[in-house]
């Protein structure tokens, strides 16, 4: 893995909903300090994979090992206690709380929470109830809340969705800045190929719950199976 140790090892992960196999026998590793991309067409199982890592879903088979410890049977709040933080594809802020309170739930005190809101450009919204804020603001507040956990592993589910094309460069900057400022490992689901190709050290491609390909961005961009999957969908 480019010389870095695996921080997360996913081994043989399987889960199904009724007849739908959302993940089948999925294995991959996430290297410490890297930005790993998890991509694939709609319904490929990317969010399901996040939910298995964070304990929201219980896989029917397979294990998730984080820094040598098996997380598979732990409750979500205990997994969070290992400093694994995430954002949600469809935003899961606490709607009745202010931006500041949202970030404080992540574990920061008031002063630190203000710093983090400042870091993501949302300090002006600190005292506002998040319910009525624009989508982009709420997305950044979710990132601040995740950073409040001082995460060792940060899971980002489609950080660029909902932003215009010209914002993608900025989001890429933010993600790279987070990696170096917080010395955190990032696993990121994203549909924007431009963003994925730019920030990821390594990419894992899912299709119908299975791993289709894995490699560095150049190899993935040149992989015929990947091109087929993306052109086909």
């Amino acid at each position, binding site marked *: 893995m480019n010389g870095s140790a695996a921080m997360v090892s996913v081994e043989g992960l399987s889960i199904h909903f009724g007849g739908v196999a959302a993940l089948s026998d999925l294995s991959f590793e996430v290297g410490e300090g890297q930005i790993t991309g998890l991509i694939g067409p709609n319904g490929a199982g990317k969010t399901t994979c996040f939910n298995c890592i*964070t*304990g*929201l879903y219980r896989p029917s088979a397979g294990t998730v090992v984080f820094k040598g410890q098996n997380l598979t049977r732990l*409750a*979500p*709040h205990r997994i*969070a*206690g290992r400093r694994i*933080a*995430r954002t*949600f594809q469809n935003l*899961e*802020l*606490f*709607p*009745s*709380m202010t931006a500041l*309170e949202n970030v*404080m*739930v*992540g*574990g920061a005190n008031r002063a630190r929470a203000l710093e983090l809101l400042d870091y993501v450009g949302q300090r002006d919204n600190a005292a506002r109830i998040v319910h009525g804020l624009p989508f982009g603001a709420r997305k950044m507040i979710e990132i601040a*809340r995740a950073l409040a*956990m001082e995460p060792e592993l940060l899971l980002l589910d489609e950080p660029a969705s909902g932003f215009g094309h010209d914002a993608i460069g900025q989001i890429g900057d933010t993600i790279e800045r987070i990696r170096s400022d917080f010395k955190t490992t990032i696993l990121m689901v994203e549909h924007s190929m431009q963003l994925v190709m730019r920030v990821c050290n390594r990419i894992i491609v899912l299709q119908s719950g299975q791993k289709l390909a894995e490699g560095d961005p150049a190899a993935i961009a040149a992989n015929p199976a990947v091109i087929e999957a993306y052109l086909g969908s």
Partner: protein
Amino acid sequence: MVRWLGIAAFAVVIAALPRLVPQFVAFELTYAAAYAIAIVGLVILIGRTGQISLGHGAFVAVGGYTLAILVTHGVPYGLGIVAAALIAGLLGVALGGIALRLAGVYLALATFALANSVAPVLKRFGSLTGGAQGLSIPSHSETELYYLTWGVAALLFALAYFGLRSRVGLALRALRDSEIAAVSFGVNPVFYKTLAFGWSSAYAGVAGALLALATAYVSPDVYSVALSLNLLVGAVIGGLQLLWGALLGGLVIQFFPLWSQAISPALAAVVYGIALILIMMFMPGGIAGALGRRMSFIRRGHE
């Protein structure tokens, strides 16, 4: 600033009232304060965690009987109140663990069954509880009871206010707003929901102890299902999202039935019911919610 002045003014009024109003009114206000304490418990439970309880009267009963049994065995009533809080609180923790496995209407049904089981259980253990006769408690002066009850209410309101603003309160709100996000950020749902149930039950227990002292008597029939429902009505009418709504709730369930009685003795229940329906129709956030909006409207108007 305005808020603290308001609270100070309110405290002065409450302290002076026994000298200004007839004694029986002061005595009714003692009851209102005790109800308000139980309703604060419901505001914590329902307003802050979204768990519904139709059975809070059961914890009021536990508090009342704990006090009555201890006091008739020579324990000072101060200790009796503390014991009422502890025993009702512990029972709440135990039942909260069960409540966790139930959601929504099932939780409501289970707590309703709890409220229904109080009288039979009390009658069954007659050697301790005095059976259907109940227990008599030595009486105290009405002024003493007034200041005791309002003093305890002030203390418990303050505790709830600061408790809900602490990390604990934040965790409870997080769980109510989005359980998925809350657990993903390290909030232990079992711990906090059980804690909320225990906290709220302890408040009901204290209310029960104070009501028992005021009445100088406990008997199974006092703790009917109607008491549980009345407390819930008080919480909803006062306003579930604002703590001081509990105070209004306590006043409503103490005084509205009396006023209804005065308006039409024959149709008292109907008048009471209509008043409640009107409040719910025109003030969906309870009285406190409606007043809160009105006040922020006035404040904005001045800017």
